[in-house]
């Protein structure tokens, strides 16, 4: 027996993943040091890239791994943003201390929401989550103390923080959330929980029959995603400094999450990064052509879905067998095993 076990090994890291880890560390260091070497416009772009990446990763976790096709994550972006209004503008808490609390608020609201929308499946779930997001938006728009339908400015909440530090802290928070989301999803998927999660995605009844608690898993994923979206919403509020229910709870957040994840590759960790890069490239390239970038993105997403449903990264990874964030276990045959097999 001992002889046969020596013939193969189970590999969880690849050469690409070791290189990937080093590259990631270098990028993180470069981003953290950005306030001292980059211009303000670049810092803003990178900050936006990071929170788009975080949103995409949250939706990827939810839909790509958890199989929960929500069209209503803008609810938590909006709630996170408006938490800053309550916590910082009204209660005077430092905006950056309020960011994690905003994530908690979103997760808390997600508890009763999940209790209702989890009664729905498939298409019903998708549209149900959308309706819930509309309800939260209408509640905020009907609350006069939150600025009502026309919104309000939160400039007073950041008064006293120098512009340099405000931008630097926003960037660092965005980096923590964007890259944190990436690392978190990676570690989550490599754990026992990740196995259960992908099993649920592939077949609910089969995983349930093998003892996976489908309900608990969906709860965890939904609350985690709400928390992440809430954090991003709070950051968006701090960057924009002006909030309105229409913008904070905008369907555009879901549009971006959908397109970025699907174009990049749903159910892969690298996919949202690729998708976010494509999104930013298209937006910069078609800058000045109004909303044409959205039309091109929509066409690209449809084309990807119809021709290669695993997205750009899925296609690339399958063709060249490269994985920077491997979550699966791979069987590597030893020399003896290869010989006996041939």
């Amino acid at each position, binding site marked *: 027996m001992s002889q046969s076990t020596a013939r193969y090994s189970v590999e969880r890291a690849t050469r690409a993943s070791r290189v990937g880890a080093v590259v990631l560390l270098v990028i993180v260091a470069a981003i953290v040091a950005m306030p001292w070497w980059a211009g303000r416009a670049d810092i803003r772009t990178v900050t936006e890239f990071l929170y788009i990446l975080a949103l995409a990763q949250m939706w990827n976790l939810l839909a790509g791994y958890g199989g929960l096709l929500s069209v209503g994550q803008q609810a938590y972006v909006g709630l996170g943003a408006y938490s800053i209004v309550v916590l910082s503008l009204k209660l005077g808490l430092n905006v950056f201390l309020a960011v994690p609390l905003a994530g908690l608020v979103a997760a808390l609201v997600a508890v009763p929401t999940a209790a209702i929308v989890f009664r729905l499946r498939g298409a019903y779930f998708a549209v149900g989550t959308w309706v819930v997001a509309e309800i939260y938006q209408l509640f905020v728009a009907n609350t006069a103390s939150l600025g009502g339908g026309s919104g309000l400015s939160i400039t007073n909440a950041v008064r006293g923080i120098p512009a340099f530090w405000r931008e630097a802290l926003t960037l660092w928070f965005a980096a923590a959330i964007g890259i944190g989301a990436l690392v978190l999803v990676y570690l989550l998927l490599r754990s026992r929980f990740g196995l259960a999660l992908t099993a649920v995605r592939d077949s609910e009844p089969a995983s349930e029959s093998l003892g996976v608690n489908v309900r608990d898993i969906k709860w965890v994923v939904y609350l985690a995603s709400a928390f992440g979206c809430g954090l991003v919403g709070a950051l968006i509020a701090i960057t924009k400094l002006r909030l309105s229910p229409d913008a904070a709870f905008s369907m555009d957040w879901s549009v971006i999450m959908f397109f970025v994840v699907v174009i990049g590759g749903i159910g892969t960790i690298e996919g949202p990064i690729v998708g976010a890069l494509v999104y930013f490239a298209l937006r910069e390239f078609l800058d000045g052509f109004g*909303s044409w970038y959205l039309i091109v993105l929509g066409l690209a997403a*449809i084309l990807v879905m119809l021709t290669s449903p695993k997205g750009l990264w899925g296609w690339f990874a399958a063709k060249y067998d490269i994985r920077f964030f491997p979550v699966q276990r791979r069987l590597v045959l030893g020399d003896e095993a290869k010989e006996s097999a041939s």
Partner: protein
Amino acid sequence: MIGWIDTIIQGLLLGGLYALFAAGLSLTFGIMRLINIGHGDLIVLAGYLGIVATDALGLNPFWSLVFVVPAMAVLGYGLQRVVLNRTLGTDILPPLLVTFGLSIILQNLLMQLFSADSRGLNAGPFETASIALPGGLAVGVFPVLIFVTAIAVIGGLQLVFSRTSLGRAFRAASDDRVTAELMGIDNRHIYGLAMAIALAIVGIAGVYLAIRTSIDPTVGPSRLLYAFEAVIIGGLGSLWGTLAGGMILGLAQSIGFRLDPGWGILTGHMAFLAVLVFRPNGLFPKTRDR
């Protein structure tokens, strides 16, 4: 008291418009389990087609239906055959995403073509004409026409479903896709016809919407939500249920509007959620979501 009776009547009549929004969605959702996220934007597209046709013809906007309805039907058949048929399967992500993309493309194309300004159709004095009812009440002629059209459309669909071979094919494809194919039904063609009928109704709904109120390229998604809510409240696969669903939604909205102008849409959504919580399959389901 009269005020409340008026609110209830207006709400029920508004439900006629929602039923028109929803009839096409009910059809495609019932037959193909296709959730068309672009449904609301197609209604808006039909409205703009009506505006273009009316400008070109210089006639009463109702004449534009002669052009809009067939155009939408052809668009529907083509859309289903070329794009949407490729997305059907057990996974709901492809149809959801592709129609979502379609929605974004339509919204932004309309924005480029017609700008963000809201526009409408003018049907002349007919729009404001009303019939006096006993007790000092009055109902608008146009809302009544919308309601009657909704009943006619749904009655017609019901006849097609129960009396014709096409209807039999629709029901067969709805109940069991694979067996229907084995029995010699060309599902792709049947689905194309279903979408053609659905979008023909969308054509009527869009022109009516543009006459009733002004439209702009961003109003599509909320029309989709109303349509979807009407379908789900009524129950999957039940056309008369969809009419009832539209009326319940219209009633909930107009009661909300009367209580506080900011609450109308909110009470509609709440009514929808309440039905989902207590009757997850809707009030009058004929078939089940698989």
